[in-house]
């Protein structure tokens, strides 16, 4: 269960560049649900994810994960509950470390890190098995540095890393946006199966209306730092991309959507 109550975030407070990114956002997410989040640029999607991850401390309001108030808990301390995959494949994994070192780093998330060898023989086997499931042949390259891999391979591994330490919440920040269509499809299928297998409460921010409806169990639209659409169940099943675009337009007071034309893709 994730609860965001009356969240406000103001950046650059008291400066000419002051910007209200979230204004009284309320959102409750049931354990195990897979929520897709859409909205135009500046709607507050990334800020909301940042608040959940701990990168952004809200100006007011409260964030709770599994009943624990984490509003002011730093990113690193929160990481035991929250796993995250970034839009940029270079951000989510460490290029200077090998594949298995990246996995070891993720596997120790939330537990006390000590002087024990990061890659013992048990872990080595476990990691190999997990990477083999991707069917990308990477299990034979476990000692290769991450920066030798393609963006898609890195995102796929980032997803594996996100599921290694038993986090409750998975945050996906347009994690397929930087990939070519084929790889994006592969990563989305992988996301779906990992989320189901590990029963993760998932929030996925996406620019693609199709992804927003094809995946997940609930869709939320943000605008002006607030939730303006929240569909689930039959309502959502019957929704088409065209309906979504129409709602988008209405929400924005009848503005045309030219800058968001790509949303359909």
């Amino acid at each position, binding site marked *: 269960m994730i609860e965001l109550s009356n969240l406000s975030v103001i950046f650059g407070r008291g400066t000419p560049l002051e910007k209200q990114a979230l204004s009284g956002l309320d959102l409750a997410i049931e354990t195990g649900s897979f929520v897709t989040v859409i909205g135009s640029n500046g709607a507050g999607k990334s800020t909301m994810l940042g608040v959940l991850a701990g990168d952004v401390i809200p100006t007011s309001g409260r964030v709770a994960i599994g009943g624990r108030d984490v509003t002011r808990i730093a990113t690193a301390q929160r990481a035991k509950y929250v796993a995250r995959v970034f839009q940029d494949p270079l951000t989510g994994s460490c290029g200077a470390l090998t594949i298995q*070192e990246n996995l070891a780093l993720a596997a120790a998330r939330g537990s006390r890190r000590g002087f024990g060898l990061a890659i013992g023989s048990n872990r080595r086997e476990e990691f190999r098995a997990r990477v083999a499931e991707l069917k990308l042949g990477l299990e034979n390259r476990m000692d290769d540095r991450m920066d030798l891999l393609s963006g898609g391979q890195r995102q796929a591994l980032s997803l594996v890393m996100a599921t290694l330490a038993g986090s409750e919440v998975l945050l996906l920040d347009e994690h397929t946006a930087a990939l070519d269509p084929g790889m994006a499809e592969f990563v989305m299928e992988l996301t779906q199966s990992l989320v189901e297998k590990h029963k993760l409460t998932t929030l996925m921010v996406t620019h693609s209306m199709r992804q927003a409806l094809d995946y997940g169990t609930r869709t939320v639209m943000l605008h002006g730092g607030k939730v303006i659409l929240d569909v689930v169940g039959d309502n959502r099943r019957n929704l088409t991309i065209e309906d979504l675009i129409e709602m988008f337009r209405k929400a924005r007071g009848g503005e045309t959507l030219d800058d968001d034309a790509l949303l359909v893709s």
Partner: protein
Amino acid sequence: MSQIAFLGAVELGLVFSFVAIGVYLAFRILDFPDLTVDGSFPLGAAVAAVLIIAGWNPWLATAIAMAAGAAAGLVTATLNVKFRILNLLASILTMIALFSVNLRVMGKPNVALINQDTMLTPFFGHGLSEFYVRPLFIGVLVIIAVFLVWRFLASDLGLAMRATGANPRMARAQGVNTSLHIYLGMALSNALVALGGSLFAQTNGFADVTSGVGTIVVGLAAVIIGETLFHSRLILWALVGCVIGSVLYRIAIQLALSSDILGLKASDLNLVTAVLVACALILPRLRRGRAAA
């Protein structure tokens, strides 16, 4: 080059390989350009020298010198992490402050250790000449240090430190307290540098406040020579490279001193070092440039 001069160069290279490993930890692992070492090297020398003269066990004195170095690293880390002072500037502040601290520690600019028993004294007089005993003894310490640092960097904690330097955002997302690792890494780095300083004082018979001048450049030169030679991404080879690089650097200086090869004199050493380090810094960039084109 005479054998004694060669062994002397090896010995000094081994002493400075602790500096090289410390510099490697700060610059390469943590990505923290740390100039504190110019102060923590003489700090290690000063603390060890003063305690040895006061009659402390040289091993204990050296351990305390390392602790003092670690404390210096913590000061730089605090200025950077807690007070958000730019890393380079934070380290310069600590370095400058250490000049005064070192004078306070010693009570004068130069403390002599020529007649004192040091860590090495028990190993002298067993048939092997001092010229061999010194590099052998320090070599053993270097091997131990390389193993321990390598083992540390392969642990969960060490992995987290490497991630802190390489990709702090990712590290935090993986639950790594990056601030903690900057403290830890800077303490470790400067403790090793102070160990080098303390061994320098014990093998050369004096601690002098001026002995820190240029430590950072020597350390960087060693790291870079090692990287150029081994060109490996494996940590163990990088650490071995620091040691080999440091020894080769000293042998190069000894060559410049011992002959008229290339017409070099001791007075050209600073220029040679600067050119060497500049080349090594520029080369990877050129390589990258070519790769991009």
